């Protein structure tokens, strides 16, 4: 088995794909540093180190050659996405546990690269939020809202030694999604809530800019054909439409579409998480259905669920449906009359 084609597209490998996706995250990370301090750099590096450690260990255990698999970059991407979805300045072991669930449980227990049913980063996130909800809601507050924004060394200190001199209240706050939820429950009016400084202009101070940076990076991915437009578009459309309807029906309880699009993990989810090829639907129509429903679920979970953000659970729920969605949305093959159901279920 070594026939044609005898040439392959140049500069094309899993590593290249993963590195390009990582590069598209950079603007978002810069904005994060700008608005929330350099703590994110600590959590990113920590997750990356843990992930590479776990990956190497498992590959050795499974007797798989280290070099091609470790250098494929996929585990690095998983680690970075998890770090970006988690609060910064959390204790180091929280990252360790998250990465363990992402890499060992979600990826390798399902068979490794390409075999996993669930998005690894989101499995890590979900495991943490279920097990350690308190830590997972303490986010670094944006500059201008926080009393202190730890510098790099202080951030190291906080992560490894657990703070010491600075109290968490000084530099963390609840996210805007959390704040909205609790304050609506307390009976505050929408205008009053949104008027607080942490809410910024539309999706949370600093957070909205980070989201726009993810959007920019994500659009680069799409224009470079590393992702098709279907998933980001349908995911964001699903969020906007669902949020819009809820907001129209009950404006006092539900924030508008723009708020939902620019807060929490919406943009990161749309371009970097829901698009994970291994766990997403693969047909054009399937992608629209998968991501549209994920967007819908995101807002529903945010509005009615007990968790601060809905992206992770929405994506994980839709991951389950992928084989089914794919099988029923097969595109029409050239020369055939119809597409539709084929293969799996």
């Amino acid at each position: 088995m070594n026939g044609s084609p005898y040439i392959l597209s140049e500069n094309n490998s899993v590593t290249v794909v993963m590195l390009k996706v990582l590069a598209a995250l950079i603007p978002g990370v810069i904005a994060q540093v700008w608005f929330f301090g350099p703590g994110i750099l600590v959590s990113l590096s920590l997750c990356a180190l843990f992930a590479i450690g776990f990956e190497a260990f498992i590959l050795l255990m499974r007797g798989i050659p280290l070099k091609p698999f470790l250098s494929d970059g996929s585990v690095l991407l998983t680690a970075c996405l998890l770090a970006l979805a988690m609060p910064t300045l959390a204790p180091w072991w929280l990252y360790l546990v998250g990465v363990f669930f992402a890499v060992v449980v979600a990826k390798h227990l399902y068979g490794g690269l390409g075999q996993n049913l669930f998005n690894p980063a989101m499995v890590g996130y979900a495991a943490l939020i279920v097990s350690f909800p308190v830590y997972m809601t303490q986010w670094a507050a944006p500059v201008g809202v926080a009393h202190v924004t730890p510098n790099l060394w202080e951030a190291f200190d906080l992560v490894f030694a657990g703070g010491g001199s600075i109290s968490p209240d000084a530099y963390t706050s609840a996210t805007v999604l959390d704040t909205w939820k609790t304050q609506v429950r307390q009976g505050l009016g929408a205008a009053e809530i949104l008027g607080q400084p942490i809410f910024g202009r539309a999706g949370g101070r600093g957070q909205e800019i980070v989201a726009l940076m993810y959007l920019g990076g994500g659009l680069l991915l799409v224009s470079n054909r590393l992702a098709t437009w279907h998933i980001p578009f349908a995911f964001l459309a699903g969020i906007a439409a669902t949020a819009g309807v809820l907001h129209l029906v009950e404006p006092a309880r539900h924030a508008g579409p723009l708020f939902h699009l620019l807060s929490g993990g919406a943009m990161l989810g749309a371009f970097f998480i829901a698009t994970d090829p291994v766990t997403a639907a693969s047909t054009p129509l399937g992608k629209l259905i998968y991501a549209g429903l994920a967007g819908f679920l995101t807002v529903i979970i945010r509005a009615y669920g007990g968790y601060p953000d809905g992206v992770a659970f929405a994506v994980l729920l839709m991951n389950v449906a992928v084989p089914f969605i794919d099988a029923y949305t097969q595109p029409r093959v050239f020369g055939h009359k119809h597409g539709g159901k084929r293969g799996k279920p």
Partner: protein
Amino acid sequence: MSRKLFTCNGGVHPEGHKDASSGTPIVILPLLPRYVVPLRQHIGAPARALVRAGDAVLRGQMIGAAEGYVSTAAHAPTSGRVVAVEPHEVPHPSGLTDLCVVIESDGLDQAVEFQPLDWRNLDPSALRNRIRDLGLAGLGGAVFPSFIKLNPEGAGIDTLILNGAECEPWITCDDRLMRERAAEILQGVAVMRHMLGAREVLIGIEDNKPEALAAMRAAAAADVEVVAVPTLYPTGGGKQLTYILTGRETPTGGRSTDVGVQVFNVGTAYALHRAVALGEPMLSRVVTVTGHVAAPGNYEARLGTPITDLLLAAGGALPGSIGKLVGGPMMGFDLEDNAAPLTKAVNCIIVKHSSLFPAKPAVLPCIRCGACARACPADLQPFEMYWFARAKDFGKAQSYDLFDCIECGCCSFVCPSHIPLVDFFRFAKSEIWERERHKHDADQARARHEFKEFRLEREKQEKAEKLAAKVAENKARDAAAAAGVAETAADPEAERKKAILQAALDRAKKAREGVTPRNTENLPPAVEKQISEIEARRAESGAAQPETDPPRAES
């Protein structure tokens, strides 16, 4: 000339490397001392050898006659003596040998008398038979016997497409031919048009060949449209070009004639022109020799020229070469042996070097990125087919329309995990064919067994009947003896046997004739091989197996 073009999905842009060989005129190879002419250079049954070792032959003399319907003739490339009719290496992906006529040249190059064909007035069927006996087969790589494709009967062909797309990298033989011999190509086109009764004639050429486009436009009559098509591999696929030019989609398992289109390669048109204008059989073809050779270019060589000599003509392989490819890098195959001869199917020889053909990187698991699906011109989901082919779940692979795969290689080309997807598809197809064959054999065995039981039963019955008849007869004879009546009727048993035999012969004949031709322009060699093997098997078993494709799993 602003025809609305349709866009196929998928396709890739491999590096062209056309400049390597397209700059110099076609060089005609001098006479060689020895030629090896395979009796099967086309799709279908091999030609039947008409000569034996020791026979003297003349250039253009038929040395192999078409055998069966899907077949065509083979001819001596020069005058001389047949030294052997024996299995010999041939350029084929299987690396197997095939029956060849080995001819030693006498250096005189004497020809038989060629008779031009009066194509306008000749009876269509007679004309087609002449074309068959002149050995014409498609030169685009699929080598389907041309006379079959030139039969308009029942096909309702309104459009004739001439394929000058030449989308595979490195290959430039059609390009050079169009630049240098446009007028002759177009005369061939006129014959095709006449034979098919096509209303419209379109010539599709990729826009990376401006000189060929200009030459063809200059030579084309007003009612022939020369269309520049975007450079995108595999635009030159028969079904793809048909769609791009006409928007008509060839139905699955069908041929372009099903949508009223017949597609020929430019080289075939040129050969047809020579066949009718000069009465010359298909004796030579233009072949690109390129890659890591001293003098890359295009060579007009006689069919049967050993590839060694072809390479010598191109200055020989340069040091550091790592093997040769037959055909292009996307759909070609490794040449096992340089002694193999040039055939009608060989449009290109590429000498490989590690700088041009780097070793394939390590294979990683599929990450379902879908790049392969986006690149697939047949709109398939290669990663799903791969998944099932790898798991040897061929039924499932088939349910993802494996048999619509044209093995163009686009999916493997773009896969970031470097998975040799097409290898898996070839493997899956051959396994499925193999299983079909087993099933067919088993069915036949069962049928034979049942027939035997039936026969034994019948014989028993017949014996009993005969016995009864004899008893009756004896009685009757005894009774009639006195009257002297003689029994003179013909033996009814013999009559019946003869009738059964005749019926069986008729059936077998029908089955052979009923073999449906396929649109095989630009099929990959592996498929060709499989098709020809099937044809051979069919011919052997003499049984009808009318499906074009193996039956599919219900989807």
